[in-house]
């Protein structure tokens, strides 16, 4: 009932599919291995800006036609840009996939008209302003920049109002030519479909893309700089803190232990930080999450609280981490965290869209299919000793700190 297929077109585009005849819909996405970390110098924000521009028109369709042709068949489409990937995806009922895919493949070869570029620039500036009004996003960006410093992961995905306003369309066209080579893209399908038809569809729409060679990426390892940023926003009611420290990379087997540790320490309910900080009412948010990157990784801790509670909460965080460093965590805690992770993954996997991201993402980096069962087995294999080893290699010390809000006198934790 579940099957996996893969092929490589003559121009280097990889096509993969995890098909499930029980599904009601089918999802598909182009995974372009490019993002903010691949930008140089004055290109800050270019990958994300380009993502917007792909919806602004092709030789066959203008922006309104792109939206209209997706909506005509009730297709749910969207795109996202991160530090390392730009993903364009659509979910549709199986009978409408050919029509939806026709649009999705079409926008992957955009015309990048200067007039559209100038209009869309304004939308990007509005998106930056929107995030500037969100203290958690401001703190997250500041923490990431302080933690990674000059490493390519320290760059901003959105860029700044200045970098966007100064951007030239020729620069974008050049970046597109280099980074959107078919060799640098994985096309994934998940859900209900027939492989030979999907492969034919992919060939008919993508075979004409010119191969230009696989672009490179700098993947220097980094454990972060342990910096400190304080951004004053006197009118904020809450103090918003983001802490960052090094964690296993995507390629590291220890990432499964890191996933379990993050849930055990910082899930929004029932975790160590929940009991120490949220349950007693010291903060209305204190979550720890684990983010894996290409040859790097980070734990992010997000905390929002009454400004007066900020340093006491930082001490509590330090205390929780200290205890885990000395004693690890017990089997029961591991089991609870694992059960949460597994149940959530299985629930997510019931929707084709929920499988699209892992299937396409893993194939982009590992060049192989990682079935859900393999991930479940990897989580099941994690032991208390693995957590101790993990804490030894990635002790969550030092912690980079960004503080946003009325306080200017905070200090980073040990």
């Amino acid at each position, binding site marked *: 009932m579940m099957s996996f297929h893969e092929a490589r077109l003559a121009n280097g585009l990889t096509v993969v599919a995890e098909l499930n005849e029980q599904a009601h819909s089918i999802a598909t996405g182009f995974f372009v291995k490019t993002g903010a970390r691949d930008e140089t110098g004055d290109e800050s924000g270019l990958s994300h800006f380009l993502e917007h521009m792909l919806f602004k028109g092709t030789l066959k369709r203008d922006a309104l036609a792109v939206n209209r042709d997706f909506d*005509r068949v*009730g297709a749910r489409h969207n795109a996202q840009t991160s530090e390392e990937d730009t993903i364009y995806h659509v979910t549709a009922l199986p009978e409408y996939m050919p029509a939806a895919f026709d649009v999705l493949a079409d926008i992957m070869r955009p015309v990048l008209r200067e007039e559209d570029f100038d209009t869309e620039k304004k939308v990007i500036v509005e998106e930056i302003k929107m995030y500037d009004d969100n203290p958690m996003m401001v703190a997250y960006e500041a923490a990431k920049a302080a933690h990674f410093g000059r490493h390519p992961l320290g760059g901003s995905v959105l860029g700044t109002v200045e970098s966007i306003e100064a951007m030239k369309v020729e620069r974008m066209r050049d970046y597109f030519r280099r980074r959107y080579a078919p060799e640098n893209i994985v096309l994934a399908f998940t859900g209900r479909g027939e492989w030979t038809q999907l492969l034919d569809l992919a060939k008919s729409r993508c075979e004409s893309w010119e191969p230009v060679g696989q672009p490179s990426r700098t993947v220097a390892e980094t454990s972060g700089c342990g910096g400190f940023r304080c951004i004053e926003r006197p009118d*904020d009611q809450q103090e918003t803190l983001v802490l960052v420290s090094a964690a296993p990379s995507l390629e590291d087997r220890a990432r499964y232990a890191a996933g379990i540790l993050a849930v055990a320490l910082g899930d929004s309910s029932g975790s160590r930080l929940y009991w120490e900080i949220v*349950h007693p009412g010291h903060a209305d948010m204190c979550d720890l999450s684990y983010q894996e990157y290409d040859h790097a990784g980070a734990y992010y801790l997000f905390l929002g609280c009454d400004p007066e509670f900020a340093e006491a909460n930082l001490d509590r965080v330090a205390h929780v981490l200290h205890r885990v460093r000395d004693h690890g965590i017990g089997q029961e805690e591991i089991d609870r965290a694992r059960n949460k992770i597994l149940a959530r993954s299985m629930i997510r996997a019931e929707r084709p869209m929920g499988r699209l991201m892992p299937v396409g993402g893993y194939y982009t980096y590992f060049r192989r299919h990682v079935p859900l069962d393999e991930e479940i087995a990897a989580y099941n294999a994690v032991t208390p000793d693995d957590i101790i080893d993990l804490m030894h290699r990635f002790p969550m010390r030092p912690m980079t700190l960004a503080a946003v809000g009325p306080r200017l006198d905070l200090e980073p934790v040990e």
Partner: protein
Amino acid sequence: MTQSAVRIEKLPNGLTIVAEPMSALRSAAMTLLIPAGAVFDPADRLGRSAMLAEWLVRGAGQRDASELVAAFDSLGVTHNQSASVTHLSLSAAMLGTSVEPALELMADMVLRPHLGAESLEPIRALALQSLSSLEDDPASLAMTELRKRYFGPAWGRHSGGEATSLEAMSCEDIQAAYETLIQPSGAILAIAGSLDFDRTKDLVARLFGDWKAQPVELPTHVSPEPQVAHHTKETNQCQITMAFPTLDINHPDYYKARALLAILGGYASARLFTEVREKRGLCYTVYAGYEAMHKQAAALIYAGTGSDRAQETLDVTLGELDRLRKDGIDEEELDMMRAGLLSGLVMQQESSLSRSATLAADFYHLGRVRSIDEIRLALASISADDVSRHAKDLDLENRTILTLGPEPLRIGSA
């Protein structure tokens, strides 16, 4: 034609089970809605229902708070408890194998909560910080202020309450709410996914059968006068929000009203996104939506944009409303709206979580659950002319507009 699998059973005490077994899924999700939301909060104890919801998870039955949360975690159940204006709700998402033990835990929370006095201060601290967080989130704050003005002091209130009320809340206040409002008359348990209906029903009857009914009277609804208001705040973006009357789900022309709103601002090729964002680049987020509150339904419009472009955004938005009323819609727009809605309905079959939410909402508003075919037929039976005629009757004179940002805006003639 698909056969509806929805099963409805009302217990003698008034609790209604609305269930849909979905054999293709491994997951299940449930929501227990108790008519005990913020609308029942006394005017000097706003936020009482939200504090009660948080109190229920702090120990119940034989388990203290940490044992209760650990029991959910061990089962891999993601649980939540919260108060909306209308309901206090407990929800859970899990694998089907955990449904029965999760129901037992929920029954403890509802029927045997500890409501220990030691929890009051932590809950109060959380509630106060959550209010402060809202102040730091301009988009949510603007919508909250809009609802207050449009739906009035009872049905438009923010369930998080107000600081002075939260400060004054005593254990006795919240206990009184528990004793009078946490009862089964009018309560709905919606559950969808991997489950055996008869077993589940028997278990619910056993767990909740002794729950004593004591019907409560709903506050009467007073429609406030339409108004234009500005909330001054030093933000980068100006938040523009608007509400005007539309038709309730029980109205024979309901689907025409929903179609009209979707065409106005429900998807990427809708009027507002096209005119405000795609053609003019005025903002990143703009949409129109539908919201039902008790017997009153509202069309809501939102746009967030830089202060320098807010006036133009508002003018274009109001212009689109006028154009809709004057010129109506065409057949192609209606087809697009149908395609989107029907895809969404089919895709719901892949998610127990979204299906359980729909079961609960339909039963609450209609006293029954609509099948996909019923909705399909209703949508097929309306024409573009029907929707255009409905547009002529749009009650734009009774609109409420709330803006939030550094400067107020000018409102042109309707």
